């Protein structure tokens, strides 16, 4: 983006995020509420960086048990087996279906990690007021937002499996704690992506 472009902040104006009404803020620190719809006005999303950081850190914390704890406990007459995401990948690979193993590995292990890393990277660059590669960064942000909704696939699969495979006493599948953490990772990452204010990417170049 070109520097010196006219922005709302430069004009001392703020647009409401829900109804889009342009208004003058009371003060820069506390812009007040939208006179039309009553929504709290923010020049930038309130505390966006801090919140995003909090969510990302929470997601990171959850990411560890999500991978360590079993996501699925399958009870058969013969045995009880605990499966973590990674053991599932290993099992798939060992049984010869390496494309499936790759899909699971990418979708369930690498993508959440990549999303978290991407958000962390965006936050760091914003905080360091970096003016480089702003277009690349917004593209990265869009990808993160887009991918987010597909990340719950694993959780859905497990939910379906658990509901369908209840052949007591021959076989039954129960969800493990891991799946809760996995869902938490996905949800927290999505919220974090939502909380992040992409406008802040250009803030530094406007000053």
């Amino acid at each position, binding site marked *: 983006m070109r520097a010196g472009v006219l922005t709302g902040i430069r004009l001392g104006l703020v647009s409401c995020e829900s109804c889009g009404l342009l208004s003058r*803020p009371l003060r820069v620190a506390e812009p007040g509420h939208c006179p039309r719809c009553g929504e709290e006005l923010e020049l930038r999303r309130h505390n966006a960086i*801090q919140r995003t950081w909090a969510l990302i850190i929470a997601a990171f914390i*959850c990411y560890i048990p999500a991978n360590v704890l079993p996501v699925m406990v399958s009870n058969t007459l013969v045995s009880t087996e605990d499966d973590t995401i990674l053991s599932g990948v290993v099992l798939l690979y060992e049984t010869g279906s390496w494309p499936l193993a790759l899909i699971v590995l990418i979708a369930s292990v690498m993508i959440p990690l990549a999303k978290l890393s991407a958000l962390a990277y965006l936050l760091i660059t914003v905080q360091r007021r970096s003016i480089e590669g702003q277009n690349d960064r917004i593209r990265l942000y869009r990808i993160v937002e887009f991918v987010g909704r597909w990340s719950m696939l694993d959780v859905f699969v497990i939910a379906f499996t658990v509901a369908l495979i209840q052949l007591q006493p021959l076989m039954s599948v129960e969800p493990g704690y891991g799946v809760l953490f996995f869902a938490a990772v996905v949800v927290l990452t999505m919220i974090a992506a939502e909380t992040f204010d992409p406008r802040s990417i250009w803030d530094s170049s406007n000053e």
Partner: protein
Amino acid sequence: MTDHTDINNVPEAVAVPKKRMRFSVVWIIPIVAAIVAVGIAVQQILSKGPTINIVFKEAEGIEAGKTFVKHKDVKIGQVTKVKLTKDFTHVVVTASIDKSAAGLIVEDTKFYIEQPRVSLSGISGLGTLMSGNYIGIEVGKSTKAHYEFIGLEVPPPISIEEPGRRFILEADNLGSVGIGSPLYYRRLNVGQVIGYDLAENGRSVTIKVFVKAPYDKYVTADTRFWQASGVDVSLGADGLSVRTQSALSVLIGGIAFETFGSFGDVKPAAEKAVFNLYGNRTEAAAKIEEVVTPYVLRFKEGLRGLSVGAPVTYLGFPIGEVTSVRLEGDMMTGDIHPRVDIVIYLGRFVRHMKKVDTAKEMGMSLQERRPTVQRLVDRGLRAQLKSGSLVTGQLYVAFDLHKDAPRVKIDFTKSPPELPTVPSGLADLQEKLQSILARLEGLLKRADEEVVPEAKKTLEELRGVLKSVDTTVVGKDAPMQQDLRETLQEINRAAQAVRGLTESLERNPDAIIRGKTQEKP
């Protein structure tokens, strides 16, 4: 900025007073996440029970991560590792036990691999056909925790918690008893054999049995155990006898017990009390006689066919049995002869008698009974070996009254006192036969010496007589011969005349009435 009307027309925002927080509430999320994650980690660590190592001979059907440790069919742990010992002779199975079950893992806890088993008392562990083998435990009573164990090869047949009592039986041999063989009380299956072992000196066998509650109270100090193994065929002096316990025990053997002649309520025997195991029921029942009087018999004859346990009879009534048969004597003088120890059961003796004060008789002491025994001996009471069966040649000791026996005084100072004997009928017969033969021999000898020369002389005389007979009677010109010839000629002529008569009579039968008629021309 500028005083642009448009901008001035923009309404001013409404001020709403609000506290600002330095830190966003959002930080609660990572804190909660961290607390939950740490909480789960802590719970995982805390719930981790002890890890134990069990050494097995072989790890049949044991797989790391798939085999469980189960108590009462409840999963209490899981095998985490299976590997060989350093010398490759055994298998070390590492299992992590749930914290909740850690109390079960004590010093004397026993581990075994539960698998399908076909044993004497049935089939067990069929469930493992479906679920796979698992490690069973037999919880010990100790309270000391322990983490290294040696696994059993077979599961203990009786759980330590099963109410009942264990007893130890001593026997000469194991018979057909095995672990799991049933224990019968009045033909009820009330327990089983839980183990056996050779005695340390190798001369006997100790058998451990378990009697289930409430039947264990029937085992008292007077209880007798005997082998109810299979079919008990005994061919003794008292003939052929066949006994069986139950159809099952015929197949797999077993032990039975009973309290013979119990007197009121007797205290049950203590745990791990030691009992004798008798060969059969008769043997077990016999030993219960209260008044047992030992005696010694010395025979002059061979005792082949007399075995320990052979009956002792008085005029045909069984009153005791042989307890030992052996040789005794002086090695220096070479005077070695068989000695037979017997016992007389007064109870049986008295039982056969009519109108007798049993209690009084039984209550008499050995001293008091001595005159009776002496009186019997005075009247000719003698022990004798008799053949119980001609087929088997088994002998038994029979007391009979021999009227003509010489008087014997019993030496009651000896213990046990000796009772007089007479040679057996068989030996008697043998002796008599021998004396007959001896006499026959003497007879023959005398005949040889005295009769034969006499006979020779007689024979010579006889020959002279015969010669004279020859000349007077048999010679060609002997007068007797001539007379004889003439007589024969006379007879011949007479016979011819008779023939002529009969012929003419045939022709003219009426000639006998009318006389001879002239023949018609």
